């Protein structure tokens, strides 16, 4: 039956563009859609970057910040939008929408996604969700300032910034984003499962595809929880149902809307039932991509490929039963702590397997310190640091005093903020030659790398200390909050905060250098040729660079081996592409 299906793929009917609009806007080519996703995600990510400057200004220099017009409302709106944009609209959209779209068909030897039209609509709906999200800035009251977790009751009670419209646009935008993600995600999963080329078994797929595949499955199963809670909170806000709003929310204010007996804990459970898999929706594609980067630029096969695949699967399954470790201080059932601490610590096992395998891949390898490789190595280091603090926070007893301090901020920024961003940078430097046919500028790339890698470390590592001395997160003015004289944490904390802020401004500014590199190299970059890194996976074997619509010539490639045949003893070249037949 498999034989009958290949000709169907080979002759897959593709939509052919006739004008600029159909080529770049109504494009059904997965590569164009990937670039659309990437540019939009990067643009909205820059907005989030500026927002982080605003909040860093206020945290580092409270008096100057206030003098420059950063009110508490603006501060809370900034942290909320920064968090939500970074997690959903940048990381999820970039890793799945952009890398997923670009790499899946190319790495699997397919002509396109199975339903290119749905794929196109997916991007348009994603763009709509971004527009709805940013609408919060022009509507009265501004965007919501409820914190990115949007916990009720405070998210929809008066006094929270953006309670008029901001919370509505936020929840609506999330619901729209989920629709977009579902359309894209169904395409990715179906393509991976049903449209691989001859010889491409699941266990020959590059780990990038495995990571994206597992993350997409997680997304399809976890986003429903966010969707449902967004719908229920919208109902609470708009027609005053009481799913999440307890009676006490209206008890002290006669003018307030009457709420009756809802359960705020329910929202937290649903949010984190989505939220924890979301961490791995971001992390798993990063794991996959970084495995490929390490292997290619170390000229060595990835160590323990099968173990890596099973670790991805195990992490995916476990991520659904660890969610309440975000809620140890929320007042949930006291017995839950034991259950969730146990599952959380178990999930460290497959994660540690991956870290060991990355390290062993580098062991005695012929490491090329190219820019993608530098980013990949710094990912492993950052991820280990961020992951280890996760073990602290996974234990109830340790988490209780550290909750809502900068220790938590340091942990999640290192493990799911900086780490995936480093992989995204590495991936862009790695695949830019395939996308455009030209190399990115190496010197600018190295500057970008060193400032980003060291800078982010300087930003987030001191935050662990801030957490230990008890600096609370999300405070508009820590000095005022502690009685004007830094009464409950030492002077050094204020000094550190100022230093962190200055570093953040510098590191943020250097990201514009990266954008400059992207733009300029498109015209001025060195010609790359079809396979500048000597990589083995199929995307480097297209007849044209950049690949044309339809990717392959008359025939789809045939795969004969895994994607990691580097430095095979007795071979002339130090890499053997996947479509080279084995000798008898």
């Amino acid at each position, binding site marked *: 039956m498999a034989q009958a299906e290949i000709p169907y793929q080979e002759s897959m009917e593709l939509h052919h563009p006739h004008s600029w609009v159909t080529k770049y806007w109504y494009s059904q080519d997965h590569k164009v859609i990937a670039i659309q996703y990437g540019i939009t995600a990067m643009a909205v990510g820059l907005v989030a970057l500026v927002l982080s400057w605003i909040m860093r200004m206020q945290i580092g220099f409270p008096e100057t910040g206030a003098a420059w017009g950063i009110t508490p409302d603006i501060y809370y709106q900034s942290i909320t939008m920064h968090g939500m944009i970074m997690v959903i609209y940048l990381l999820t959209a970039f890793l799945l929408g952009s890398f997923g779209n670009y790499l899946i068909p190319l790495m699997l030897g397919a002509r396109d996604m199975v339903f290119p039209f749905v794929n196109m609509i997916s991007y348009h709906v994603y763009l709509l969700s971004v527009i709805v999200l940013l609408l919060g800035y022009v509507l009265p009251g501004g965007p919501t300032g409820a914190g990115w977790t949007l916990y009720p009751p405070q998210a929809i009670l008066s006094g929270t910034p953006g309670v008029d419209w901001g919370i509505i646009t936020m929840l609506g935008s999330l619901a729209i984003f989920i629709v977009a993600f579902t359309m894209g995600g*169904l395409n990715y999963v179906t393509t991976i499962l049903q449209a691989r080329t*001859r010889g491409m*078994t699941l*266990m020959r797929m590059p780990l990038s595809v495995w990571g994206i595949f597992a993350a997409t499955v997680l997304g399809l199963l976890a986003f429903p929880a966010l969707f449902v809670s967004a719908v*229920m909170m919208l109902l609470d806000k708009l027609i005053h149902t009481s799913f999440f709003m307890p009676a006490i929310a209206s008890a002290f204010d006669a003018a307030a809307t009457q709420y009756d007996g809802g359960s705020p804990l329910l929202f937290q459970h649903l949010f984190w039932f989505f939220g924890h898999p979301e961490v791995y929706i971001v992390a798993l594609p990063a794991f996959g991509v970084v495995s490929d980067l390490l292997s290619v630029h170390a000229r060595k096969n990835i160590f323990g490929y099968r173990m890596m695949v099973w670790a991805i699967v195990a992490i995916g399954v476990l991520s659904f039963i660890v969610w309440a470790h975000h809620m140890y201080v929320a007042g949930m059932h006291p017995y839950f702590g034991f259950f969730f601490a146990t599952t959380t610590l178990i999930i460290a096992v497959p994660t540690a397997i991956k870290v060991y395998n990355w390290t062993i891949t580098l062991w005695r390898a012929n490491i090329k310190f190219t820019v993608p490789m530098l980013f990949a190595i710094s990912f492993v280091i950052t991820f280990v640091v961020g992951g280890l603090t996760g073990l602290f926070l996974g234990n109830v007893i340790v988490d209780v005093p550290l909750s809502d301090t900068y220790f938590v901020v340091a942990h999640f920024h290192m493990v799911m903020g900086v780490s995936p961003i480093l992989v995204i940078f590495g991936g862009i430097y790695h695949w830019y030659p395939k996308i455009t046919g030209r190399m990115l500028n190496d010197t600018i790339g190295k500057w970008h790398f060193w400032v980003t890698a060291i800078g982010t470390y300087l930003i987030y590592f001191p935050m662990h200390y801030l957490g230990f001395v008890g600096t609370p997160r999300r405070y508009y003015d820590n000095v005022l909050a502690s009685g004007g004289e830094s009464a409950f944490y030492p002077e050094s904390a204020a000094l550190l905060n100022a230093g962190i802020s200055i570093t953040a401004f510098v590191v943020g500014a250097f990201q514009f250098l990266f954008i400059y590199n992207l733009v300029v190299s498109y015209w001025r970059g060195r010609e790359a040729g079809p396979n500048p890194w000597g990589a083995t996976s199929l995307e480097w074997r297209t007849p044209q660079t950049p690949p044309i619509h339809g990717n392959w010539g008359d025939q789809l490639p045939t795969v004969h081996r895994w994607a990691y045949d580097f430095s095979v003893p007795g071979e002339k070249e130090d890499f053997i592409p996947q479509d080279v037949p084995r000798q008898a």
Partner: protein
Amino acid sequence: MAEASAGHATIIQDWASDVTTFKGVPWGKAMMWIFLLSDTFIFSIFLTSYMTVRATTAEPWPNASEVFSLMAFGHSVPLLLIAIMTFDLITSSGTMALAVNYGYRRDKRKAIFFICATAFFGAVFVGMQMFEWYKLISEGVRPWGNPWGAAQFGSCFFMITGFHGLHVSAGVVYLLIIAYRLHKGVYDKTNFEIVEIVGLYWHFVDLVWVFIFAFFYLW
């Protein structure tokens, strides 16, 4: 197909093979199944939330059997309308199964007829649901409160049946579009698997109703 599905050994063969993992499953059908899996999570989480707020509230929960009773022949019959809606939806599922069967027999005329019949029963279902909403609203049930007890009764009722009703309405539109396109001959070159794909969606809508009927109306 009988020998194809025989034996658990095929699991490893299929997952270890190239090209396709689900052998003989067209792209559209695979995509619909995965979508339905995702949708299962949506409805499961709706129902789980309903369970949670119902078990959490300290107010008495209205007795669904009495709330949804109708007067018939001078007696109050509990859940009468809901029972009729259930039978209506099962009937539509039956006609849908026939449509799929005739589709694979390449009997286009009968397939279109049964798809339209399914859409008709679906539309009747939506109509009865509108009547049910109208009746409850006129009795004072609102999403934010009701005369008999916990406010969440109305919230859950309108949200869950509303979301299911939206699925049914979308299904009716989807069925009619497919019937029209079948009639126009869009699918003549294929195996008419599109009828099975729309059928999967429709049976899923019926499936969700089975759970709503048990957990919301009977429990």
